[in-house]
């Protein structure tokens, strides 16, 4: 039993080391000066730590602007998605209405169609709407998350009908019911969805790459991909930019860890 336990942990520790090494390496790379970057594999002695890479990053690249753009786009996208998706999910979970089945089928197909096939006409459409090179061109097409609708439908199925009925008797309209009764009990799912949607929007690359033209509007993924090669041909600055770009997601994750794991798996396990 003892050996078994030891072996098990040895394997797990080994796996974790493999998984975490690149990240440690990333962190190490950000605090090394240009001469030390490739000289030391990981950390040099603390006296050699340097902020050179971060200075490069902030001086050569409008990094802060990218960060603000990203935060705004991701924040707005998630909030809009959260509202529309939970609303849609609520309708699908708790109402009987004509066309419900059709909508479920449409949602399934949307999930299976690769979004890339729509890129070209979407670009024309966004152009016709005058939204090329704007934040709205990113937010509006993604305003409803089909995945989110499934997620909320799944978790709202368990809502007791009596609860809703009681609300109606108290004179709540359906919208009020959704806002005051349904949403507050969905808190864990809301947390999970926020993180999932935030990651999706935060890492979005192809669509922003196509419709954003002004450097001042770039989000982090495009900004980092383009700017690092343009101004600072420095691996250190590139690593620093990557590290900072990951931080918001990590923070959000730590805040929502519990909800996230349960939300991520809820849909699948209940299936």
């Amino acid at each position, binding site marked *: 039993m003892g050996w078994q336990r030891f072996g*098990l942990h040895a*394997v*797990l520790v080994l*796996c*974790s080391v493999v*998984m975490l*090494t*690149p*990240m440690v*390496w*990333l962190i190490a*790379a950000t605090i090394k000066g240009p001469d030390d970057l*490739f000289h030391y*594999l990981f950390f040099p002695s603390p006296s050699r730590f340097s902020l050179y890479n971060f200075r490069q990053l902030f001086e050569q690249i409008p990094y802060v602007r990218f960060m603000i753009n990203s935060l705004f786009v991701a924040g707005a996208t998630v909030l809009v998605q959260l509202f*529309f998706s939970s*609303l*849609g999910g*609520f*309708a699908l979970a708790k*109402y009987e209405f004509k066309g419900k*089945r059709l*909508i*479920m089928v449409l949602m399934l197909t*949307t999930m299976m*169609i*690769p979004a*890339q*096939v*729509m*890129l*070209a*006409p979407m*670009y*024309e*459409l966004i152009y016709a709407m005058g939204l090329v090179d704007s934040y709205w061109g990113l937010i509006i*097409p993604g305003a*409803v998350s089909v995945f989110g609708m499934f997620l909320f439908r799944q978790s709202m199925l368990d809502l007791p009908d009596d609860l809703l009925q009681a609300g*109606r008797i108290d004179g709540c*309209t*359906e*919208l009020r019911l959704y806002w005051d009764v349904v949403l507050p009990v969905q808190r864990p799912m809301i947390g999970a969805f926020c993180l999932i949607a935030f*990651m999706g929007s935060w*890492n979005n*690359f*192809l669509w922003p790459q196509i419709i954003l033209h002004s450097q001042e509007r770039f989000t982090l*993924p495009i900004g980092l*991909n383009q700017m690092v090669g343009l101004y600072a041909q420095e691996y250190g600055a*590139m*690593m620093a*930019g990557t590290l900072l*770009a990951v931080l918001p*997601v*990590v923070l959000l994750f730590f805040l929502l*860890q519990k909800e996230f*794991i349960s939300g*991520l*798996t809820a*849909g*699948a396990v209940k*299936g």
Partner: protein
Amino acid sequence: MNALFFRLQHRYAPYLFVAPFVILFLTFTLYPIAKSLSLSFYITNGPKSQVFVGWDNFRFLWGDPAFHRAVWNTCTYALTSVFLQLPLSLGLALLLNSRLVKGRNFFRFGFFSPHLVGQVFVAVLFSVVFIPKFGLLNRVLHALVGTAIDTKWLGNPELVMPALVLTSLWMYVGFNMIYFLAALQSVDRELYEAAQVDGAGAFKQFVHVTLPGIRSVAVFVTVLSTIGSFQLFELPYVMLSNTAGPDNSGLTVVMYLFQNGFIAGDLGYASAIGWTLTMGVLVISLAQMRLTGTWKRED
């Protein structure tokens, strides 16, 4: 409040609630899909000049070696995702699910954390991990097994795909493990006890209790990874500094679509590629669902 209003708002509320989805579906899914179907019969040089060519785009696609390469690469990647990555994820989940494990949450976070980095940033990170002579991988491998320190992972057409697979393993193994772990934890412990009473060994327990118990999750994860694999783009594109890699060794179907439509400016050909991809993905995921009998259970 007016009773009539109350009744009406109750009746029409669900329609109002799904309206955003429907509107968005019509404008940003149905219309573009239909439009891209019609575009796929034109050769375009930007939206302004278009020439109708009938089935020519598809004929050209059929005999286009670069497209073949893209399909080959994409399928290779998809197959390794399903047959290499998922078993590893399941293996890790099984280890973590053992009752002997201490610090499960730590390990779970450790394995999962690469996924927080996000594709583009992972690609930036690994483009540096793979550099010859100074990169992390070469230095570690050189020290451990003595491979050449100047191995060009991203410069040698034979090594690009392994490099991609390695990167995606790092990024997704832990992510998929979360699903498997949750599924394993939801399997009824009593079933194992019953099996033990029947004298079933560890392997028999795995086949007769564990596998059926996690079946639906396994199907879900498989379909999801397959669809995801077929849409591979950011990882190779950013990692190979916005190219398809040496001898197109990192070219994927979506990258080829992007190159043709948004770099060369032929939206028609790009649409033809997109439709071919859509058909492929639909057929494969429907086949997967049918094979595993999930389709019927959806409603």
